[in-house]
């Protein structure tokens, strides 16, 4: 509990940013993000865009897996669905503010189909069902050439706003982070509505939840649909950002990447999704930069760095599971607590 903060109404305690300090920090963050394209380097800007897309997708998976406790290994494929939808509709000249919701909705519809086995199976069986769904979807990506362009991939026309084409990272940055802000707030608010509470009840003990009047099937399908909606939108933005895509991008590793981001960030929290996505994007990048630095003195290093990235990735997952199961959010909270009571110790 932060010292020196008093509430006179319950409503003010329920606010999303419930202390002045928090509001200040959010304002600073928003200002930083709004001005970022003006002062950052090109590299940093591109990284920020990729991180934004990952945050969108991770938010969705965190709702499905973190809040509702349903493991999904087909999240990467849902991104693909969104991306190809945007590619297909974009070529017909549909503007982005129409294609992105459609991409999300289509992914959500597929999410419902994939989630249907959750009616009868759960836990690990569900994980394998989504694994199967992932392979079926990626098979479609590769084979349905007339829509997805097959193995060669397809291109996505630039997003345009009333005739002004959003080209380059500069414009896309605002598109991405506008969506990130909207959807993060939506996720945070969803968690405190009936639906969000039903998710948590189902996660903690589904039979008890059913006895308390939570409709299991609807709730589980909602969890899948909402998670897939986020993935679909993220996939659409990804398409606009890259401009061209091949089916290889939506491999199983992508799904695992998002699961890892959810775990390292912290299950069931929006902050966790953001931290996890940032962290999981930066770690391999950092490794690559280190390798580039080291490559001058050790020429053989570059060939083993890519596999070493995988090793570090695995170590991170296991390390977080064993030593910090609540993820970076828990670390963040601990740091916060120190400052709340400073100069006294907790």
């Amino acid at each position, binding site marked *: 509990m932060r010292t020196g903060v008093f509430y006179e109404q319950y409503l003010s305690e329920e606010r999303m940013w419930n202390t002045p300090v928090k509001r200040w920090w959010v304002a600073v963050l928003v200002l930083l993000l709004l001005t970022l394209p003006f002062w950052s380097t090109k590299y940093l800007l591109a990284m920020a865009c990729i991180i934004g897309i990952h945050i969108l997708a991770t938010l969705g998976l965190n709702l499905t897996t973190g809040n509702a406790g349903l493991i999904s290994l087909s999240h990467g494929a849902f991104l693909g669905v969104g991306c190809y939808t945007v590619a297909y509709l974009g070529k017909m000249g549909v503007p982005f503010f129409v294609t992105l919701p459609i991409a999300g909705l289509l992914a959500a519809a597929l999410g419902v189909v994939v989630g249907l086995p959750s009616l009868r199976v759960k*836990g690990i069986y569900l994980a394998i069902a989504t694994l*199967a769904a992932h*392979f079926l979807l990626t098979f479609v990506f590769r084979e349905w050439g007339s829509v997805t362009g097959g193995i060669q991939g397809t291109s996505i026309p630039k997003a345009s706003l009333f005739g002004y084409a959003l080209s380059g990272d500069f414009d896309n940055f605002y598109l991405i982070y506008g969506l990130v802000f909207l959807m993060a707030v939506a996720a945070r608010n969803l968690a405190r509505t009936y639906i969000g509470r039903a998710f948590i009840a189902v996660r903690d003990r589904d039979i008890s939840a059913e006895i308390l009047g939570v409709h299991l099937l609807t709730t589980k399908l909602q969890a899948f649909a909402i998670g897939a909606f986020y993935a679909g939108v993220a996939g659409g933005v990804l398409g606009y950002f890259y401009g061209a895509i091949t089916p290889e991008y939506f491999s199983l590793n992508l799904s695992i990447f998002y699961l890892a981001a959810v775990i390292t960030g912290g299950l069931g929290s929006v902050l966790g999704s953001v931290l996890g996505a940032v962290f999981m994007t930066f770690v391999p990048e950092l490794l690559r930069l280190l390798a580039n630095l080291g490559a001058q003195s050790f020429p053989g290093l570059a060939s083993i760095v890519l596999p070493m990235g995988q090793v570090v990735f695995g170590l991170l997952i296991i390390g977080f599971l064993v030593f910090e199961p609540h993820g970076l959010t828990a670390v963040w909270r601990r740091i916060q607590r120190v400052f709340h009571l400073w100069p006294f110790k907790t």
Partner: protein
Amino acid sequence: MIEFLEYSLLGLLSGGVMALIALSFVLVYKGTGAVNFAVGEIMMVGAYLYYAAASTFGLPPLLAFVVSLGAIALLALVVERAVLRPLSGQPTVSVMMATIGMASIMHGGVEAIWGGDTYAPPPLLPRSPVFLGEILIPGTVLGNFAVSALLIIGFLLFFRYSKTGVALRATASDPVTAATLGINIHFASRLTWMLAGGVGTVAGVLISNSAGLSPALAAAALSVFAAIILGGMDSVLGAIVASLMIGLVESLAAGYLGGKARDIVPYLVVLLILVIRPYGIFGTRTIERL
């Protein structure tokens, strides 16, 4: 007709090797309740260890095989102690993610050491093809099947009759009761992982003998999930029967519908089974209580 027989026979034979991978998975699931997504990578690491022992250190194939079994058992011990013991009692998702992490480490490690090239490890079994009437069967395929069958029968007998096997089964069905009866459950869990690693290594060596050794070997284990779901996750017999069936279906699909069908048929089977009969053919139907 001949064509059909040939496809079915090849399918059944390759299903035999798949049964080994499935056995490795089911051992761990039954014994410790962990869902091992690293089963393909364990198999791959085993095959690479065999290759290293046989080619790099120049040991004769049989000795190299024994060495690689020893090495994988050691690795399994380390993994059990460092990753799975601290996670015991955690939700299934955590353990599953930990095995995915393990898979990633092993995959990266193998690529860092050996690179992405395809190697041909020295053959463990004779390669001469066998003719059955007009049907030609590659020697390795038949040999693989024979080894798998022997090993599987051995395992079934071990679990049925030996004292250790019974102790493992007891631990699997109820760890707390097993512990009160004087069974060392930590030892049982360690032994389970070692056995699973060993079985995986045998499968890896056999497959790499017929298909070559590369990091892509790990993906061969993915269609095993279909077999495991079909057979029921906790049934050894189910895993074996289902592997043969999946092998048969895969081979027939590849033969009549083209090679691409092989990629998706197992997963279609998975989804079908999960909707119709989620606990598989031989699996236990669990009843949940509050």
